[in-house]
């Protein structure tokens, strides 16, 4: 009963926020002369309107969930990992390269590619952790900067040595992966692929790990107060490398499943332009670094995006306005509306 009440209270805030966000979005729609009901209906349809669109939303959410989980882990350990983008790019590239050049049967290459993606994303992230632990370089800055370096490096590889020379050869991309290494689709004719299962399992595992294991406990305490953790015998340096590695590993996995499940090749810019990394960070922050919450927030953000596309396709509301509405919704969802609301009510009573 108590738990139920607590749950209800914790749901009040996001619900209220979504409500206010929709109201604010409605104002934007009215300003451009759209019909609020129709626009939101199209948005809903684009995100959840049918099984097809629902799975579409989930497939878009897949990399966001994985990135969000990685970021959540690092945040929980007290490390501000802003480098998901670079980690994802390198993970994706390594997965593609492994899948293309490794000999062996398809299933073997697929697994190897996923592992390669996780490892290279993890190493890139752990590098930032190492620079911080060893040289006291601010992690926030290094991770941000390493993004640019990773993107340029990957860009170079696919523009020159690894470039796809079959076909029109006009894109900076690797060759298409052999069909045997593609991640299977979950439903025929839908874009949702097995990567989503990985993301969902990842969320549950991370949740269980953080909550019920010794290491998870240590990571949480390290994030809560690093002095307390080190006083209790947690080794910050080691933990930093470990948690940054796992954090980057999630981002690398995100890149890998995009390559193996959606694009079937590494295409320069295909992972950076949708802003998956920023969405992932937002999902994490919206959920207060709770793994399951992060997954839900990621789906919500993905739904806003796919909904926005639906809105653009089927109404006269232009694409820019749909991005305005998305931003407004996010802003309000992030606001701790109940905070001031409850406080005020208390003061009065």
């Amino acid at each position: 009963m108590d738990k139920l009440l607590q749950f209800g209270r914790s749901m009040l805030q996001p619900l209220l926020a979504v409500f206010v966000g929709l109201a604010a979005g409605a104002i934007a729609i009215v300003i451009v002369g759209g019909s609020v009901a129709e626009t939101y209906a199209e948005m809903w349809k684009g995100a959840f309107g049918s099984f097809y669109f629902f799975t579409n939303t989930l497939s878009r959410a897949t990399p966001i969930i994985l990135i969000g989980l990685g970021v959540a882990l690092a945040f929980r350990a007290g490390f501000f990992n802003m480098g998901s983008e670079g980690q994802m790019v390198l993970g994706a590239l390594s997965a593609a390269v492994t899948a293309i050049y490794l000999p062996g049967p398809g299933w073997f290459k697929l697994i190897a590619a996923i592992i390669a993606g996780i490892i290279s994303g993890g190493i890139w992230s752990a590098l930032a952790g190492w620079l911080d632990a060893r040289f006291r370089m601010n992690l926030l800055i290094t991770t941000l900067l390493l993004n640019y370096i990773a993107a340029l490096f990957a860009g170079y590889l696919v523009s020159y040595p690894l470039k796809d020379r079959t076909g029109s050869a006009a894109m900076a991309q690797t060759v298409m992966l052999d069909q045997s290494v593609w991640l299977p689709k979950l439903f025929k004719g839908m874009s949702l692929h097995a990567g989503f299962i990985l993301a969902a399992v990842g969320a549950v595992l991370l949740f269980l790990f953080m909550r019920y294991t010794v290491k998870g406990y240590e990571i949480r305490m390290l994030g809560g107060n690093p002095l307390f953790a080190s006083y209790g015998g947690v080794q910050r340096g080691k933990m930093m490398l470990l948690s940054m590695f796992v954090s980057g590993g999630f981002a690398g996995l995100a890149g890998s499943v995009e390559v193996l499940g959606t694009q079937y090749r590494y295409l320069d810019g295909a992972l950076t332009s949708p802003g998956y990394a920023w969405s992932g960070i937002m999902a994490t922050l919206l959920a207060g670094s709770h793994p399951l919450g992060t997954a839900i927030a990621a789906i919500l953000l993905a739904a806003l995006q796919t909904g926005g596309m639906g809105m653009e396709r089927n109404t006269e509301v232009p694409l820019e306005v749909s991005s305005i509405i998305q931003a407004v919704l996010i802003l309000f969802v992030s606001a701790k509306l109940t905070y001031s609301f409850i406080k005020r009510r208390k003061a009065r009573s």
Partner: protein
Amino acid sequence: MDQLFDVSLFASTLRLVTPILLAALGGALCARVGLFNVGLEGLVLMGAFSAIVGNHFTGNVFAAVIFAVICTIIFSILFGYMSIHLKANVIVVGIALNFLALGLTTFSLRAVFDVKGAYYNKDMIGLPKWEIPLLQDIPWFGEALSGHSPLVYLSILLVIFLQLFLFKTVTGFRLLAAGENPTAAKSLGIKVARIQYGAVLMCSVLCGLAGAQLSLGNVTMFTEGMTSGRGFIALVATMLGQSNPLGVAASSLLFGFMDALSIRLQGFAMPTHFTMMLPYIVTIAAMLFFKDKNYMQEARKSNESSR
């Protein structure tokens, strides 16, 4: 070597660095009051767009700059209200604002000028280029330092002004206090929220100027997304300079210089992708010297009792 380090390199550095520096100073003010402003990119974009709008309607560049500042202030109030008043996560707000700014400017570009992508009008006059009387006659320096837009010189003055403001004035002192230990500041009756709003507003003024320099100083046009990541570079400069105006200036200049240099390195043997990495790699290397606060100090600070 002569090819690399010519006068135009320094002139170009100064021009390219001004918007970054202005935004980074704004970021530093926010950081000083405990608001990590990821929304610089969006604020600068707003500034760049509204400067062009102002110019279009008033036909006066200075009025346009003022207009840009006002619009950016209005936009930043949203940032302040969300993160200070409604206690939203400041980073989420920053990211969302970046998206919002991109959407709003693109949309308004169409609404105001009825064009897509870029607004350019050859009759539009940008910020004047000031030749500085004595300076311009000094052989090498004159060429590098003279003949820039007023905002370039203003940004240099602002660095000094902010340094003095933060460390020499009462208001600056309280601003530092509010960021250093908000609980203690509140316990002294200092209005921390009000100071935070103040910092956000000052930041938006600076970002407005940064945007104006971009769209009326560096070039005279607005194009969709023309900030091209400069706001994030400014964020790095803010952190690297440890939110000290002089430090921020130094790190912005370092980055700007390396950026200008990397352009010149294009075409020398190395692939472009690698020359483009140069500013980022050098910035990381510079961090070896700009040592950050120890995590212990950081942790001590955040684990003072709140009761």
